[in-house]
């Protein structure tokens, strides 16, 4: 950068700090958003929902049926809080959403079981939200195989479920208990940074233009590069405050394991923060006013949250969506954070995810500097 001067860069940095301090609303947002998201995603949102309301319509009250019901209750997924005596009543409960499941135990359940006829227990589920019913249903399948083994002893032993021809042993690595927070809380880091960093800087230059201060700035010897970097630097510190906040919460509230190196995570976070800030700056050179800048930031934020693998499994998406997701820095940052925290990855393992972020940063920064030059001419 020919003619770059540190004193001018520093002047812009100081000015941004003063303005940041004065702008209480924005400052509150920078701290408030991570806290709010942590509460929402960390505590409220659960992809393995338990204690779902269930109605039971038991025509057979025999010991086998009771064992079955007790097993379901102790699985933790079913809350047997309703009882239906007729089919119509069961239907009504499902339709009104009072219950998620209805269990129908036929009256000849015990009799047919003893005869070895494999009686059918009908489980009706309100499957409008597959995410709500899925885990409960697979838990039920697992339990149905073994639940009655304890009762089927002596002469009844041959009625026990037989093993299939192949036995699959499943070993869940990194998060054996399938705790949602282990996945979500580290992922939040990328989401929070994308959300706040892009919006804040998207407003940065648009605001100068809208308030008329840009003309003044352009009339001074300050260079585009100095203005841009000067506006980015203060927010890198803000980004680090957010990262620290999330890591503290992850450790103390959600007990997320931290297997890898935190200094490495902080180092990579710098790249990611810079990429998002540069994106915001680019938006603010493209937008005509602050409203447009905010809209552009939202436009960028949506795919960053939906296609990055934060909300939905990345490998489950169609190829084009994966390709699109791969262009977003958040996708790579999510893998890095989860890799470092949950898998204990080192630099060698995360390197393939670093260069796409670097590339993104370089491209976006070039566009930003190019666009800024043209602002008045």
């Amino acid at each position, binding site marked *: 950068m020919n003619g770059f001067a540190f004193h001018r860069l520093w002047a812009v940095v100081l000015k941004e700090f003063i303005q940041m301090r004065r702008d209480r609303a924005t400052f509150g947002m920078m701290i408030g958003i991570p806290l709010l998201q942590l509460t929402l995603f960390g505590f409220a949102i659960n992809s393995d929902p338990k204690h779902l309301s269930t109605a039971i319509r038991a025509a057979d009250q025999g010991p086998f049926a009771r064992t079955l019901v007790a097993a379901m209750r102790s699985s933790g997924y079913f809350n047997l809080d309703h009882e239906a005596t007729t089919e119509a009543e069961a239907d009504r409960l499902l339709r009104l959403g009072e219950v998620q499941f209805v269990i129908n135990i036929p009256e000849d359940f015990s009799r047919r079981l003893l005869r070895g006829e494999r009686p059918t227990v009908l489980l009706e589920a309100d499957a409008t939200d597959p995410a709500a019913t899925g885990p409960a249903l697979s838990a039920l399948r697992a339990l149905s195989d073994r639940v009655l083994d304890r009762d089927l002893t002596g002469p009844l032993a041959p009625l026990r479920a037989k093993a299939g021809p192949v036995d699959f042993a499943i070993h869940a690595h990194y998060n054996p208990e399938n705790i949602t927070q282990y996945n979500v809380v580290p992922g939040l880091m990328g989401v929070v940074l994308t959300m706040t960093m892009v919006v804040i800087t998207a407003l940065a230059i648009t605001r100068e233009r809208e308030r*008329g201060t840009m003309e003044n700035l352009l009339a001074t010897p300050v260079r585009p590069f100095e203005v841009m970097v000067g506006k980015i630097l203060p927010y890198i510190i803000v980004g680090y405050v957010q990262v620290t906040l999330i890591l503290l919460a992850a450790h103390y509230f959600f007990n997320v394991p931290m297997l890898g190196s935190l200094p490495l995570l902080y180092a990579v976070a710098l790249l990611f923060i810079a990429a998002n800030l540069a994106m915001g700056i680019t938006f603010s050179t493209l937008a005509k006013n602050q409203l447009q800048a905010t809209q552009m930031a939202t436009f960028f934020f949506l795919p960053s949250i939906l296609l990055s693998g934060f909300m939905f499994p990345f490998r489950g998406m169609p190829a084009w969506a994966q390709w699109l997701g791969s262009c977003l820095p958040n996708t790579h940052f999510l893998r890095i954070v989860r890799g470092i925290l949950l898998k204990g990855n080192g630099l060698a393992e995360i390197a393939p995810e670093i260069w796409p972020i670097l590339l993104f940063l370089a491209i976006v920064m070039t566009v930003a500097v190019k666009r800024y030059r043209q602002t008045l001419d």
Partner: protein
Amino acid sequence: MTATDYAIDVAGVTKKFGDKTVVNAVSLQVRRGEIYGFLGPNGSGKTTFIRMLCGLLTPDVGTGTCLGFDVRTRQRDIKRHVGYMTQRFSYYEDLSIRENLDFIARLYDLPDRRAAVDHSLERLGLVNRSRQLAGQLSGGWKQRLALAACLIHSPQLLLLDEPTAGVDPKARREFWDEIHQLAADGLTVLITTHYMDEAERCHRLAYLAYGQLLARGTVAEVVATAKLTTWIVTGPGLPPLAAALRGRDGVEQVVAFGNTLHVSGRDAAKLESVIADVRAPTHEWTCVRSGLEDVFISLMDGAEDNFS
């Protein structure tokens, strides 16, 4: 820097936005230490012209120098030595007066920044308000702050774009005293304004309309270029007289000024024959030197004819 007598010396400067010619072949020379008034209706290209002088825009056509630096290639040098006060207040409203000045001083890398800021606060009488946020200042104080900020790096040329719009008469008077003081110390000032009393306080003037430079020179020279004859009428029943005069061939302007009527036209003979027609002993007619405002309106009407 080349030692030239002119702070601004440009020729044939043209700027187009799309297919609209905003500034059309304007040539202008401003001597060092001069207060040069730049007048013209809204949208006449004054601001665009000033932006080309201070390196914010590059002219499409035309050459010239500002403080001896080529306006096309040496824009960075120009920015260092020019103070530009924008039409709209363009300092940070969420920064205090001192913080604003300090920011600008840092951008110019002034050797003794603190002293420079203190000095400029003192000179403009802002010391007691230095901690006040710029956004809380009244129009007059904002203007003082803007002036202080664009003087902080001791520029050689000051470009002021309608600096006194919305400022009360006393503050305007003080502002102009300050400008004259600065010019006496050797600073060159180019100032745009809509106020005729301010135009009269300039050493020389230029009148721009529809991107064209229509007149330039001292107040007397500009008035002379327009070749406008003006009569003042006093007496009873002026409104019907004004109605009778309007639209007559040779009468271009009929303007009521309190208890008098100003009647002007570019063709003195035609005007006099019309006057002879309506002249009555109840009215007193005097031929006077045309005022600047009459001249400018006449220039603008003439230019409109040429462009339509």
